[in-house]
């Protein structure tokens, strides 16, 4: 150690002690400062530590959040894709809808709850003059082409009642539209306005009208068919009857219920004259139609002859036969009768001509001269004619004997008809006897006029007759008695009358007596039984 100079050393010591004091003060200060700094540091440290803690926890939270965000992000991405898909779907749906609307030609108008225009399809512009600019304007601002005054009112009703309204209306242009107003429901089932759809149904309307007209026409035809008195019916070629009108019921006797479903063959038993029903069907199949005469049976067994027309039609995969018949039973019967009558007439005429011929031939053989022939022939012809007249008058049933006698004697007793006396019950001589009898009476009268009682004014002729029965036969006896005339002698007249009498009266009795008082002739013959209708022999 150095021993410093004391004064200098004191000064230095003082200085140093001052410096030291100072230093010590400074140190103390510094120490205090340092302590406070330390404290502060400590505090700061503590703060930092707590901050650090906070940061740590925040960091953790951030970490968590980050994870959450990540997952949200993923979700969002998924949702995004879904949304994209949905958007595409909606877009497609929208295109589809537009195309659908365009394809179906439906005019659609969407109105909101205040009846303002939301959107619409093109077709609507046919009826409403609206453009895209008009979206949002109330529909009441616009006129429309439809004859539908209450359109807006109906829309309001739909909005209020939530029940749809449908109407068919005409447009001013003459077309027909199906207008439907429905409430607009969102997917949440909220009402958000109305939807108007307008569909042009003019064609359908036309078809409907045509259909109605057709139906009316059909009804008319049906009534006509039913009015017809003639049978009109339809049968399935392979089955039974499908139609049966009133005319059929009336002619055949089967009601509609009884007839439908049954086979025509089983019901009416048709036969075809000169052919068969099977052949008829075959021909029908071949030609598509058939017409001709058919014989059928009615329900009560009555025979029915009809003229029928058939027509085969393919209808809905069925072969149907339309048939219309006309009852000719009566007219065929009449025709048959006419033919018979004509035949009968021919027969009679020819027979009569032959009879006249016979009389002429006989007269000719036995006449003395031309004048003689003429006189006799004319006389006999007249007798024949008057006998015929009597027969015709009775429709060929027969001639009344008394009338015949009067007729044949008439030419000879014109001055005094009482010269002829008739006695006997009324008797009708059958036609085939009347003529010869008339001629016989004529002969007897002629002879009486020439040689017998009628040759004098006071002469008389009495004709009397009786009928009786013997052995199941009707016997007829006639007596011709002349009186008040010259004495008779066997006449020189030709034997026509005699021959005739002999021929007529086969197997019976003839007597000729030349009594002084006058000629008497007795005939006895068997009369044929008279038929119920009065006609006898050869008159059918």
């Amino acid at each position, binding site marked *: 150690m150095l021993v410093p100079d004391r004064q200098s050393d004191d000064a230095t010591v003082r200085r140093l002690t001052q410096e030291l004091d100072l230093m010590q003060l400074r140190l103390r200060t510094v120490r205090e400062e340092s302590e406070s700094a330390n404290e502060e540091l400590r505090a700061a440290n503590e703060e930092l530590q707590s901050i650090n803690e906070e940061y740590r926890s925040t960091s953790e939270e951030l970490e968590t959040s980050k994870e959450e965000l990540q997952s949200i992000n993923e979700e969002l991405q998924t949702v995004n894709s879904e949304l994209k898909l949905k958007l595409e779907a909606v877009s497609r749906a929208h295109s589809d809808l537009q195309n659908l609307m365009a394809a179906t030609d439906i005019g659609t108008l969407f109105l909101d709850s205040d009846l303002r225009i939301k959107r619409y399809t093109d077709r609507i512009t046919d009826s409403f003059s609206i453009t895209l600019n008009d979206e949002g304007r109330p529909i009441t601002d616009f006129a429309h082409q439809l004859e539908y005054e209450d359109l807006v009112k109906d829309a309001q009703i739909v909005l209020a009642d939530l029940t749809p309204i449908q109407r068919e209306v005409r447009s001013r242009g003459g077309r027909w539209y199906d207008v439907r107003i429905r409430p607009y429901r969102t997917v949440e089932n909220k009402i958000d306005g109305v939807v108007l759809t307008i569909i042009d149904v003019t064609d359908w309307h036309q078809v409907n009208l045509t259909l109605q007209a057709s139906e009316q026409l059909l009804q008319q035809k049906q009534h006509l068919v039913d009015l017809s008195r003639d049978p009109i019916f339809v049968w399935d070629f392979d089955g039974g009857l499908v139609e049966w009108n009133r005319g059929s019921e009336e002619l055949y006797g089967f009601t509609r219920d009884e007839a439908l479903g049954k086979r025509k063959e089983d019901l009416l038993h048709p036969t075809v004259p000169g052919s068969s029903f099977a052949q008829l069907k075959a021909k029908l199949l071949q030609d598509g139609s058939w017409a001709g005469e058919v014989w059928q049976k009615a329900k009560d067994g009555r025979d029915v002859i009809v003229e029928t027309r058939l027509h085969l039609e393919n209808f809905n995969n069925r072969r149907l036969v339309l048939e219309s018949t006309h009852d000719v039973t009566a007219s065929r019967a009449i025709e048959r009768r006419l033919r018979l009558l*004509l*035949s009968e007439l*021919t*027969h009679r005429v*020819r027979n009569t*001509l032959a009879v006249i011929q016979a009389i002429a031939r006989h007269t000719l053989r036995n*006449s003395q001269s031309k004048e003689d022939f003429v006189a006799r022939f004319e006389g006999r012809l007249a007798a024949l004619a008057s006998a015929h007249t009597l027969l015709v008058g009775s429709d060929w049933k027969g001639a009344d004997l008394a009338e015949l006698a009067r007729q044949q004697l008439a030419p000879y007793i014109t001055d005094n008809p009482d010269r002829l006396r008739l006695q006997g019950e009324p008797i009708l001589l059958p036609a085939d006897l009347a003529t010869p009898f008339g001629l016989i009476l004529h002969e007897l009268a002629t002879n009486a006029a020439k040689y017998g009682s009628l040759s004098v004014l006071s002469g008389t002729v009495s004709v009397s007759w009786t009928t009786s029965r013997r052995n199941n036969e009707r016997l007829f006896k006639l007596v011709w008695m002349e009186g008040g005339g010259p004495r008779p002698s066997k006449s020189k007249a030709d034997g026509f009358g005699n021959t005739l009498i002999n021929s007529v009266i086969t197997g019976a009795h003839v007597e000729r007596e030349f009594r002084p008082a006058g000629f008497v002739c007795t005939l006895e013959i068997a009369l044929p039984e008279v038929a119920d209708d009065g006609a006898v*022999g050869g008159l059918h």
Partner: protein
Amino acid sequence: MTEQLVDSTRATALRGTRVMIVEDDVLLLMDLEAILREAGAEIAGGCRNVAEALVAARDCDIAVAILDVRVGRETTAPVARQLASRGTPFIFYTGQVENDPQLAEWAGYTILSKPARASAIVDALAGVLHRN
């Protein structure tokens, strides 16, 4: 004068022939008998109904017959069949129309229409007689 309605050339056409007549009208029957006699025939029978005619056809010796088609309400078809089966020739003398169904059976047989001339009747009978 008396007239012959059958001329001399035919006066013997049916000489000795036995003829049956079936006819219901007396006047026509008389007439036919007279004509046939004039032609020399013998009247084997004059029948006015089918029953008589059938008997005569069976029992009498007949060379030829003349038949009305309708006698009374009947047809002489049975008589014709009987004669045909015996080989006896005959003709029809009728007022029926030509296409009468009753005559359908006898197509090919001689059918004379009323009224016929005397000569036609005689010729027809002679014709069928000599055909056999």
